[in-house]
């Protein structure tokens, strides 16, 4: 009877996957070379849906690559370059061993190199694809550009990273693309909108790094190699989109304006053509328009303001940020090259200082702390400067990336800023009055509470009476017959309706299928947890505020 016996694990999902070791053997590469290739080509392991099937019945932990990916690597020209390099190293070693210096020199001159252009093009067929994936590249380049020349990587790499990041920042300045900034404990996050893509990157603070020992710098260097190439091409394209020359010259101070060459005609944004659309889309369109207007306003946030940076503030970050929003900025000549005007300049409007007090103060300018600049950008308006004067306790710095949904916790500072954004003026801050008001309010609150308590008490007592009576009845004792004046029970129709609805829902939930019930329970659990967390934060905040108030009172007395 019929044919050969079917063997196991020869068809189905097994044929789509290959283990790492097998892949390596197929490509005939050493593990470091394979790793390098995977990084450069963007090949990553896949988790099969049925791991046991793919693993031929075994449950041993293995990483699987798609066999298509590995086949795709087989024809990569860069693999040949890797082999060339291996040969080169071998020859060089031999020449050294024989002390044939001329041979060493000759070999060194012919050191094999490779280019990654085609890989970039292949991984990102369109420019937008590349932009979408640039977050990690920027983070890495900014990190590498802060490295000292400690031998953790090539000096050229550091210099290249520095150059590319400065070019990137200059592009962002020229295009006024920055949207959000956030000072975190890790570093400073920036978010820019470039060609409709939101790009976020993190820049570490300017300190020397304590290089950890458990980090493989070779991996990082390979990534950086790819990222610098990618960033270079992207910069080129972006500069050309602004009609600027690439590579630009002398940028490192972030003071010279790239956009000087950009014609101002471009700034006059072309009016959007409006197409008549049906009712529903109208709203969306309007919203979009409003958003665009807001954005335009944000771009001109610091127009006409003149800043001066004291020497202790992070110069590069502030200069970058201020210039992104149209402000003029300068610093002391001895701090860095590129300062455009002196401290004594009369027209300076804001002097950014990060000390408890400034030694000499000019009358016609504000002395403020650096957080003001960042908060203004996130709030998209020029905030009042009073909270940011020297020596003043700063208001909390909020993350602009958090978008509170319905039911999420919102810190009171955010509420305040939103009110400012809507154009509401903050109440006159006469503290004493406020406090008195608060006190009164508190008292009122107390009264309310008491009233409520009384009501509750009444209800409770009623209930108690009833219970008592029931008990007596159940025990078969004769009731104390007593006629008390009855009370009208006012039924709240709304509440009744609500209760009814709640009951309906409860009953419907009982009829759910098991699977759906599980899912529903899970979702509800998540929701409840969210609420719980929000409540916790609210309580914490309230406790903190109360403690503050008590402190204030104490000090006043």
């Amino acid at each position, binding site marked *: 009877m019929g044919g050969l016996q079917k063997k196991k694990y020869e068809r189905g999902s097994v044929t789509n996957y290959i283990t790492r070791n097998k892949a390596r053997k197929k490509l005939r590469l050493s593990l470091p070379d394979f*790793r390098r290739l995977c*990084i450069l080509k963007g*090949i*990553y*392991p*896949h*988790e099969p849906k049925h791991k046991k099937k793919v693993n031929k019945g075994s449950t041993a932990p293995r*990483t699987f690559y798609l066999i*298509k990916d590995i086949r795709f690597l087989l024809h990569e020209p860069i693999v040949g370059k890797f082999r060339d390099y291996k040969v080169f190293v071998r020859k060089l070693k031999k020449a050294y061993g024989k002390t044939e210096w001329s041979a060493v020199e*000759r070999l060194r001159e*012919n050191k094999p190199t490779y280019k990654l252009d085609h890989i970039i*093009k*292949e*991984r990102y*067929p369109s*420019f937008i694809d590349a932009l979408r994936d640039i977050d*990690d590249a920027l983070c*890495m380049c900014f990190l590498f550009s802060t490295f000292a020349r400690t031998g953790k990587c090539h000096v050229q790499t550091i210099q290249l990273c520095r150059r590319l990041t400065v070019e990137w920042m200059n592009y962002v300045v020229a295009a006024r693309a920055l949207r959000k900034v956030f000072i*975190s*404990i*890790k*570093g400073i996050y920036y978010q820019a909108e470039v060609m409709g893509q939101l790009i*976020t990157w993190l820049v*570490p*603070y300017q*300190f*020397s790094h304590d290089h950890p020992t*458990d980090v*493989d710098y070779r*991996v*990082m260097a390979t*990534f950086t190699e790819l990222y610098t190439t990618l960033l270079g*091409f992207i910069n080129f*394209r972006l500069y*050309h989109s602004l009609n600027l020359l690439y*590579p630009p010259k002398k940028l490192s101070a972030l003071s010279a304006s790239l956009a000087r060459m950009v014609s101002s005609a471009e700034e006059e944004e072309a009016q959007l053509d409006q197409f008549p659309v049906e009712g529903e889309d109208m709203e969306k369109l309007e919203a979009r328009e409003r958003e665009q207007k807001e954005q335009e306003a944000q771009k001109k946030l610091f127009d006409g303001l003149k800043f001066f940076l004291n020497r202790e*503030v992070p110069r590069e970050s502030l200069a970058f940020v201020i210039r992104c929003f149209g402000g003029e900025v300068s610093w002391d000549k001895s701090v860095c090259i590129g300062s455009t005007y002196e401290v004594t300049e009369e027209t300076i409007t804001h002097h950014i200082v990060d000390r408890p007090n400034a030694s000499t103060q000019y009358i016609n300018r504000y002395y403020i702390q*650096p*957080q003001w600049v960042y908060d203004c950008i996130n709030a998209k308006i020029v905030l009042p400067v009073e909270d940011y004067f020297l020596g003043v306790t*700063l208001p*909390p*710095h*909020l*993350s602009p*990336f958090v978008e509170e949904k319905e039911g999420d916790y919102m810190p*009171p500072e955010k509420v305040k800023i939103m009110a400012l954004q809507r154009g509401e003026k903050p109440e006159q801050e006469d503290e004493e009055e406020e406090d008195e008001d608060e006190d009164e309010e508190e008292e009122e609150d107390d009264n309310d509470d008491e009233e409520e308590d009384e009501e509750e008490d009444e209800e409770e007592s009623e209930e108690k009476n009833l219970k008592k009576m029931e008990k007596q009845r*159940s025990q078969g004792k004769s009731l104390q017959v007593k006629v008390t004046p009855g009370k009208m029970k006012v039924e709240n129709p709304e509440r009744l309706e609500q209760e*009814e609805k709640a*009951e*309906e829902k409860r009953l*419907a939930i*009982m*009829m*759910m299928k098991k699977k759906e019930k599980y*899912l*529903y329970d899970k979702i509800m659990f998540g*929701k409840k947890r969210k609420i719980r967390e929000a409540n916790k934060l609210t309580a*914490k*905040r309230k406790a*903190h505020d109360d403690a503050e108030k008590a402190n204030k009172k104490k000090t006043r007395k």
Partner: protein
Amino acid sequence: MEESSGNMRSSEPTAAMKKVREKTAKKRSKEEEEEEEEQIFNFKDKPAGKEEEDEDLSDSEESVFSGLEDSGSDSEEDEKESDDNDDDDDDDVTAVESKQPKQTEEEEEKEEVVGGVTEREEEEKKEDEYEHDSSDEEDIRNTVGNIPMEWYKDFPHIGYNLDGKKIFKPIRNKDELDDFLDKMENPDYWRTVHDKQTGSDIVLSDEQVELVNRLQKGQFGDVNFNEYQPSVEFFSSDVMIHPVTNRPADKRSFIPSLIEKEKVSKLVHAIKMGWIKPRRVEDDTRGRFYDLWAGEDSSILGRHKMHLPAPKIPLPGHQESYNPPPEYLFTEEELALWEQQDASDRKLPFVPVKFSSLRQVPAFSRFIHERFERCLDLYLCPRQRKMRVNVNPEDLIPKLPKPKDLQPFPTTQSLVYRGHSGLVRSISVSPSGQWLASGSDDGSVRFWEVCSSRCMKTVQVGGAVKSVAWNPNPSVCLLAVALESVVLILSPSLADRQVVQSSERLLSGQPEADTSDAAGPVIWSDTEGEELNQGIRLKIQHPKAVHQVAWHAKGDYLASVMPDHSSHLQVLIHQLSRRRSQNPFRKNKGLVQCVSFHPVRPYFFVATQRSVRIYNLVKQEMTKKLQANSKWISSMAVHPGGDHVICGSYDCRLSWFDLDLSTKPYKMLRHHKKAVRGAAYHRSYPLFASASDDGSVIVCHGTVYNDLMQNPLIVPVKVLRGHVITHDLGVLDVTFHPTQPWVFSSGADATIRLFT
């Protein structure tokens, strides 16, 4: 020559000086060893004596000095002169001095030309110097040479003078104290040196002190020596008339070299064979950027479908701020918890910190780590597409008809029947709907008027009542009560006389003689006396404890259940009119929980622990077996239509069987939190109820359609609460009013409640 060299000196003074210095240095090293002895000698010539250590050190210093002496010393002197002398003298002195360097230069030139160093000349020069030396006047010269002086420590003398006579040690008994006094009192103490070779103290003269100072500073000993003398460029770019050397050119300089030829041919061969490649042209395009996406052609296809782009790094929240709102900071407990937790369990990978100003923010220590981990994630982490369920939870809730539209059903608790003192295990409503009978663990059966909740009658039966069942025939008024191993038939006489009479008639039927054998263990007996007065009319004695009684719809047949694992005698069917009993089953098919008659057809339902069996009583065979899939069945009720059955079970479930559809439950209702104890159908309304240990009675709407294609509609309509849970038992039995949409429930709290 001299002139030209002079010119050169003026043109390149610094270069020349350098050369001189180099030369002198070379010479120094060569001569050092040879001259050493002489130098020592020289030093000895000088009147100064030094301490031992100084002497040792001075060897090298001296050599430096002496070696350099030959190459003039005008500039040095110039300085001196300018310092000391007047301007007038200056000119003369320099004029005098300027001769000296020229001389020396000549000598040097000679040295260079000849190649070897002419030491003779050197010595000559030195001797010249010594001629002028006037320091050997008070000379007591020791001729022992450069030997350690302690060799003479046991002798009275310390050496021999030039004449070969002994030099005796000076008589000195200077001790520490003398030394100290000397130090304090003698103004020249600081310039006094002990000469070990002669054993005498020598006071250094001013010049000598000056010399020592200069040497200590690293200057040349000779004041007149010019360190920065211009040197003569011998081999220069200027073409001279005469050749530098007089030597004729070698022959080999005219003949091409064979070795070179060989080498060249080897290289040519290697190039021909391709072993040596021409120098690579520096690839300019590397590191140069251009518009990579100039032609966005679609020739390069995107990644395959399985490509999963890496997720972006989550954006930071408020807690990561350098100055977060105070509520995001950790309290002490939270911090302790965070520290205790494993790194992978932590909600936040860092502790939120507040800094009062930007100036105080330190570097983040794990920055490189985090970037590295991200790198690892990008190329090492297996990726998998996960479908995230994005549903509105409201959409998951099934759309059911509103309970309001399904009225009538009981909604509120309206009456409570109190009187029992133990658990009320069973209740039953009379077919007229006027009376309610209840059996309790306190050993009594009570009859209640439904509308007034009055207890009309109490019958003490002397044992915990397990089950009561009212005869469904409206023309009789009888109640079956199961307690211990007895089934009692009560005639409560709570009806018209006609009805009471008809029930009397039914009870007075005579037993058939021959059936006594068939029933075997069952004994029918009439009651007498007190019991008769109470209304107990018949006693049916069973061999085992009876748990349940159930009437046939006609009211003549009565089934009783005696659960027993090991016997086939578990169910008995009694015929009241003929006082006859029979055991319908020959085999034991599991522990019987409860039984029920089909309301219209001759079927009999037997619920064992896992399944419900349906027997055809006429054909005497099993027609169906329903699998309940639950452990264990506690109660059962049959729909008045007869095609549907509900089973309550101890695992909190109520299963609805559609007999026409399948032997598996059509629907499992997991409404209760605890074991279901009772279940009941309404006789006319499409309602059913279940009672559970969680203290609630759930009333559901259950419409049954005549159309076989349409499934029954089951909607829970009301959760009724009221019973108090005592000893972990809640509601024990539930039953509907025969005509009204009312439901009765009896509970472990010794009450019966009516919900309307």
